[in-house]
């Protein structure tokens, strides 16, 4: 690199005049400033240009932030925080208004801990999806005394573990509200008087049962099905989830049932088994478990390093330079195109004639026969020059028989050979050829 240093700005003027300038840039009287704005100026310009995007982003954030901050609403059935029609918020609020604290539990561990903490509190158990496996039900049965259990629409397994004396009796057919019935021995049942007809029915030989399902007491061998039961050891089974759900909490005698069953203590454990209780089969160990725990962060970091590598290698030193490309036309393009046309249409004869005409023209010029020389004259002269048989030369120059590609190639080669032979004869025996042509008087 050629660099010529100039020490200070003060000597710039003299340097400029001394440097062998080609005179393309005229030195101005005042030193010119930079061609680009300064850093601060550029920043403010950029801000001025991009402010609308900032405003849009702020607006978007303003709109999206509250919904992002709001937690995902709990939409499970009987969820104590859900205001949806199937949620349990209404009953929970009423209980709280009565000074009863509701302790929601999401998992078995939580529920057991809460039940242990509040030994008198009834435990509401509702597991419509059968999340809690049998082992969990057994633990629940062990830890929570029977008189504290309030089962809402329990399934087969839940009944077997938590209320073994009660068995299922199918669905309650839709219809008129169920009445508490004459044989109802439960005070809350009698007080409630009626409930909506839906949910499940249960039967038990030794339990206090209310709200018989009409049409199930005809048989003598089986007990009639009921919607609400209380076993001998105090477990309450309510076959109607609507008793606690928001949409029907105030219907019929539902409030009575809800408050009487849960309002026995100052606390309620509200246990709705969730996905956390589902026992997952411990399958074969995954890749994650087998690999050391630093592999994943190291992989993330290497991806970041890859991005740095791309930034390093991919950054251009300034914008691309534009090249105005010229028109490029290969000169022999038309000839090649015409050759393809000949070939495609099988014009072997006309191709051979073109080769022959060109050869004849060149031979007549090389042999100095003039412009309008006849074919015979060329044949005779060529035969004499090369010493070949005139008939053979005439045969070479006769291309009327060419009909195939093979004929064409051999004819083309023969013509080329003839030309080369004539050239060779003329150059090697130049003097003799000159002499002979002179003596023939064919020189134009």
């Amino acid at each position, binding site marked *: 690199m050629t660099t010529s240093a100039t020490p200070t700005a003060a000597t710039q003027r003299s340097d400029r005049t001394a440097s062998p300038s080609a005179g393309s840039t005229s030195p101005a009287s005042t030193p010119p400033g930079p061609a*680009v704005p300064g850093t601060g100026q550029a920043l403010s310009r950029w801000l001025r240009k991009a402010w609308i995007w900032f405003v849009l982003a702020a607006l978007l954030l303003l709109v999206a932030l509250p919904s992002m901050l709001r937690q995902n609403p709990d939409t499970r059935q009987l969820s104590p925080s859900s205001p949806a029609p199937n949620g349990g918020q209404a009953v929970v609020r009423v209980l709280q208004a009565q000074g009863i604290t509701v302790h929601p539990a999401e998992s078995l561990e939580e529920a057991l801990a809460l039940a242990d903490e509040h030994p008198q509190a009834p435990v509401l158990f509702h597991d419509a999806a059968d999340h809690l496996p049998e082992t969990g039900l057994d633990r629940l049965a062990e830890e929570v005394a029977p008189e504290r259990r309030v089962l809402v629409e329990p399934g087969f397994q839940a009944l077997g573990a938590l209320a073994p004396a009660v068995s299922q009796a199918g669905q309650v057919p839709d219809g008129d509200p169920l009445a508490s019935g004459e044989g109802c021995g439960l005070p809350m049942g009698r007080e409630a008087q009626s409930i909506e007809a839906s949910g499940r029915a249960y039967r038990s030989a030794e339990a206090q049962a209310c709200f018989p399902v009409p049409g199930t007491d005809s048989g003598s061998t089986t007990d009639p099905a009921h919607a609400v039961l209380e076993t001998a050891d105090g477990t309450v089974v309510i076959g109607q989830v609507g008793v606690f759900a928001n949409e029907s909490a105030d219907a019929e005698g539902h409030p009575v049932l809800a408050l009487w069953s849960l309002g026995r203590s100052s606390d309620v454990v509200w246990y709705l088994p969730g996905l956390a209780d589902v026992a997952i089969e411990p399958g074969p160990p995954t890749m994650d478990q087998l690999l050391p725990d630093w592999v994943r962060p190291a992989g993330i970091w290497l991806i970041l390093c890859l991005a740095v590598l791309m930034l*390093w290698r991919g950054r251009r030193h300034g914008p691309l330079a534009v090249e105005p490309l*010229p028109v490029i*036309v290969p*000169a022999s393009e038309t000839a090649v195109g015409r050759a393809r046309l000949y070939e495609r249409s099988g014009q072997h004869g006309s191709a051979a004639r073109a080769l022959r*005409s060109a050869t004849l023209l060149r031979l007549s010029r090389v042999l100095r026969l003039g412009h309008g020389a006849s074919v015979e004259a060329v044949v005779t002269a060529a035969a004499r020059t090369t010493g070949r048989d005139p008939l053979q030369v005439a045969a070479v120059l006769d291309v009327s028989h060419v009909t195939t590609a093979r004929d*064409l190639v051999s004819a083309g080669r023969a013509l080329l050979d003839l030309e080369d032979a004539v050239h060779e004869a003329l150059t090697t025996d130049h003097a003799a050829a000159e002499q002979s042509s002179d003596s023939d008087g064919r020189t134009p």
Partner: protein
Amino acid sequence: MVFSGRFLVVALVCLLPVVLRPGLDTIGWCLLALALVSGVDLALAASPRSLVLERELPASSRLDEPVANAVLVSNRDRRRLRGSLRDAWQPSAGQVSPSDRPDAAVALDVPAGERRRMVTTLLPRRRGTLRTASVTVRSWGPLGLAARQVTHPVPGQISILPPFHSRRHLPSRLARLREMDGRSAVQTRGGGTEFDSLRDYVRGDDVRSIDWRATARRQDVVVRTWRPERDRRVVIVLDTSRTAAARVDDEPKLDTGIEASLLLAALASAGGDRVELLAFDRRVRSRVSSTEKGNLLHRMVTALAPVQPTLLAADWSHIPVEVAKVSRQRSLVVLLTDLDSASLQEGLLPVLPALTSRHQVVVASVADPQLAEMARTRNDAETTFRAAAAERAGLERRAAARELEMHGVEVVDEAPHRLPPALADTYLRLKAAGRL
């Protein structure tokens, strides 16, 4: 912002804490450290915005000659600027930097308040106007991790003139011209038709040139000498239409035509003739006359430098008018065009009588050596068909040339490197024969 390989190394070193103490928080801390280090480096780098850039560039240069492209870099910042500089010349300018980097960037190191002259070499590959729009400066921080990059709009352009390779043919042709002129020792009759002077007979002179009347007045035998006519007109018409765009021997036919017209113009102006040049397709692209002031060749190369072939067919009907404009008397009209039969039939032939009736016309055309090569390759069916097509094209050219010759036109049809001297020889022949 630009990152260096050193930054990548630092990032890879950060892999160590990530492995030793796995966790997303470690990654976060490492990222923060990298951002901090590069940010500090950037903040300490000299501002590339505070540079003042000036160009030192000749206005024109001949093709194939290296050009020194200098950029003066003045650092107005208080910090020393270390980095690199790239001048965004278009690729056909063939910019080469001393560092041999593919983007022709040069390393830059300018102390605060000083100025440096950065030089790259341009090896232009194409005739015409070459341009650069901007100069991009990179300024690295003291750690060499990150750099600031700014593009300064400093446009520059240089006119690349035709090379005039054929000037090596000029001395021999000028010698022939002097022979005709009677200035050199060899005196031959027929070196022109214009009476020059009388002189004493020396042995070897043509007896036919003895002036008997002058001899009778003096005791010695006196001969007449002739010289070629002077102050004739040579009108060169350069066809810049689509036929001139075809490339023969990796050179557009137009460039070959420019070479030929330069040689002819140099020769004709040395021979005392007036030269007019027209570059023409559908309208006159460029016009040069030897009657104006200044060096004819320099004006010609300057005028022809930006002329490029257009994708239009030439409109020959204007040519007689244009020729009549520049020259009323009988002139030598040289048409540098193509012997393509189609364009000849449609364009030139109809207007040819208007030219030949008043002027001597020469048509010079670039022959394609590749066609001759093609015509001799006959290995299989495909190449033989190609040979036939090439022969057919050659026959058609010859037929077109014959047709032109029947109109009294001289035809010069030669390969690119042969065309300029052949055209010069034709000029000399016509001049010697007094047909100008």
